């Protein structure tokens, strides 16, 4: 293929920025729902990476296939995660992650 005008660095930089945003969001926000969204952001950064590198190595489509897998797993994870959040909300009437500290020790 012609890789004219295609620079993988741009995508890597974009993905890195997205991932950093996601992780910062996960670390600083206390709202569980926002944290879940931050996780989604990080997952999408990884997906972007996979697809971008797959573009560079066209011999096989592993990267794209992996991206689909991650989308499916992320969907499942969100389903489970939201159920946990719901249960947590019923228990504590709150969605602040600080308050979910009963499972230590």
């Amino acid at each position, binding site marked *: 293929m012609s*890789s004219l005008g295609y*620079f993988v660095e741009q995508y890597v930089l974009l993905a890195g920025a997205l991932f950093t945003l996601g*992780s910062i969001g*996960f*670390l*600083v926000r*206390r709202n569980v729902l926002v*944290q879940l969204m931050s996780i989604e952001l990080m997952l999408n950064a990884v997906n972007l990476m996979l697809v971008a590198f797959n573009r*560079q*190595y066209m011999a096989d489509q592993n990267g794209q296939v992996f991206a689909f897998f991650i989308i499916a797993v992320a969907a499942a994870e969100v389903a489970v995660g939201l159920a946990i959040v719901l249960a947590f909300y019923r228990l504590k009437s709150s969605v602040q*992650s*600080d308050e*979910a*500290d*009963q*499972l*230590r*020790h």
Partner: protein
Amino acid sequence: MQAIEALFPAQNYTLLAFIVLLPLLGAAVNGIFGKRLGKEAVSLLALSVMFVSFALAVITFLALGHAQEGEEAARFVWKGWEWFRLTRSDGGTVMLDVAFSVDALNGTMALVVTGVGFLIHLYSVSYMAEDPGFHRFLTYLNLFIFSMLVLILGDSLPVLFVGWEGVGLCSYLLIGFWFEDDKNAAAGKKAFVTNRIGDFGLLVAMGLLLYYTGGLDWSSIDNGSKNLLTSVQVWPLGTHVPAASLIGGSFEHWINMPRYVSAATLVGLALFLGCAGKSAQLPLYVWLPDAMAGPTPVSALIHAATMVTAGVYLLCRLSFVMVLSPAAMAVVAVTGALTAMFAASIAFAQHDIKKVLAYSTVSQLGYMFLGVGVGAFSAGFFHVLTHAFFKACMFLGAGSVIHAMHARIHDTDASQDMRNMGGLRKYMPITFWTFTAAWAAIVGFPLTSGFFSKDEILLKAYTSFIKVPATSLSDGAGGSMEVFAWPSWLGTALYAIGILTALMTAFYMTRLYIGTFFGEFKGWKIVKNFKEPTHEHGHDDHGHGHAHHDPSVPLEGPTPHESPWQMWVPLAVLGFLAAFAGWLNAPLFHIETMHHWLEPVFAKASASVELIEGAEHLEYVFLGAAIAAFAGGSGIAYWIYVLQKGKPAQSFVEAMPGVHALVFDKWRVDELYEEYVIGAVDSLAEFFAWADKWIVDFLLARVTAFLVSTSGTALRFIQTGRVQTYAAVMVLGLGAVGWFFVTPRAEATLDSNDESGVYSLTAAEGLGYSYRWDLNNDGKWDGDKGSFGSKTQQSLNLAVKENRTVRLEVKNAFGRTAVRSFNFARPAPDRSGFTSQLEAGPAPVRRAQDLRQLPKPQEMK
């Protein structure tokens, strides 16, 4: 007969399967459903399987007799299925089948086992009728018969071993049948443990036979038996005895001298250990007298007639192996003779009727071993046969007596005590007459079965000996093997011990006979739980018991009575056989049926047995000696216990109380074992208990648990329960991994060859790495203006003793670099075995493989 031969060809003799499996069927059904079936059904099943098994054994025996003509041994085989196969180190395969075979030897034995077994089953049905464990008892008996048949009919040592362990198990179960009493359970345990020592010997023998002869079934052992004459170094165990160098000199030389024996001797001794355990020979006989704790039919069946003769059977079966080693045979013969005399001496002082019979069994087993040991296999086996008849008869008679005594005494020990008996002749005539027949046989009353079989053994003990194997013994190992030849005095010594034992046997058996059946019945004075105050004054009771009884006082309570027909019919059959079975083999009258019948089986072994010359005329001298021993022994007993009313025995006891106490306490062998053997095991167990408590439980378990819990307590502080903390640690870890990837590492594996002086370096590859080298150590990077290239491998030649420092610089995709230098030194040509000398700063590390194999990114446009 033709029909039998057509139905059951010799190579696929399925009838054997029925003989073996019928008792197992009885055991299985009675064991599972016995409680619900009721006593009648249980005894009917147990008796009928035994009877059919016996009938089939008779048919087999007749068919064998029909098939055996002349010198050729008839042999019927039934192969069940393949059990397992072993691959030998030389690539050959050893097949082991679950196969059974029958020939003259074990065909006869099977007749005894099933026949005597049936009679004893019949007896038990009446004897045990009141016992709550009735169905359990018959189950065990049937299981025992099954195991015994597997033992004798098995076609190979492993199959025999299954039966061997099976009879051991049944023996254990039946000795401890009344396990509510601790004493009985302990006796069972003792029998089992003692037998295990012997079983160890049998296992060793199996291993050796497999190694030397390449097989474990009888015909393979036979085929490979010539390999047993190879010499084996048995000493020293390592290359030398380490402690001997402390003494030094000629002693060290002497003790380090290699010693060789033939493999046959090792096999023979190991086999003998196994047989000594099962057949209660010195030093493993101690379990048999205690085994009398079981019900009396068990003593008759297992501990007199069948199981304890398994050792003799095995020695006869492997006679062709045993005769290859004169030394092992001498051990068998001498142990047999000593056991015979030793056990007889203990029987002098016992009062318990079953104890006397037990020691007499040990003594008679000693005779059998003596016969087998001197190579008179058919004589030894003939004694197995006659002993099975007369000793089973005696035990059953004793059971009948005990049964009768229970009318007055409901105490196990007191009802077996001869001091409470006497005069029973009047009350139980059938028991008396059958016991008389058995007594006559065991003391060697002329023309009874025991007379013929014992006489034959004694004659052979004097006349026959084992030749040193002809093809003995070129040794490949360079040492000389000490070949053991029988000394000429051995036969005389064995005979002397044997005839002395015959005298002793006649004495103590007559003592038992008189004490039980003659004189006055002394059971009247017995009250419940009556015990004699001391052992030491025991003997006088034979003479003085009646003196305390005033005949004018009317007798009260039930009197002893004859047993029911289920009990006396077996007694009558066995008594008849005890009296007349000797005519199967009476060389005096030129009847040698038994000998000719067994001859083909022992043909190979007999070739190694020789008779001393000029012994033919001794036959009548020995006959006279045997009759004199009988007459002397029983005459002395008659004089002491009838004419003198036991006074000489009493005065002997008073004169030498120490000796009497020692003999009464069975020479205190049990105490000796208790002190030394069991004591040693106990101390070992105590040490292990200590180790278990302080090393395993404390050091390994508690200290480890303490360390884990302590570190757990410490680590618990960083478990905050806040998800952000955990995530932050993960991000830090991610950062660390990232840092690892952007830092270049200059590493190389070194390959050096001091001989040729060629040293090569392979730089570890990494994603986006490029390299430059400084091979000649001139401070400048090699290549075009020192630019980075893709060359990862370099090699250089060094002169002897030359040193060189090589530098490597690596640049990664981010433009970061790392430098490392490697020192090479080529040592002088080697004299002492040192190899390379590498100095490369920290030890070189091989990089992870997966990193290297990542594809390199394409050059970017």
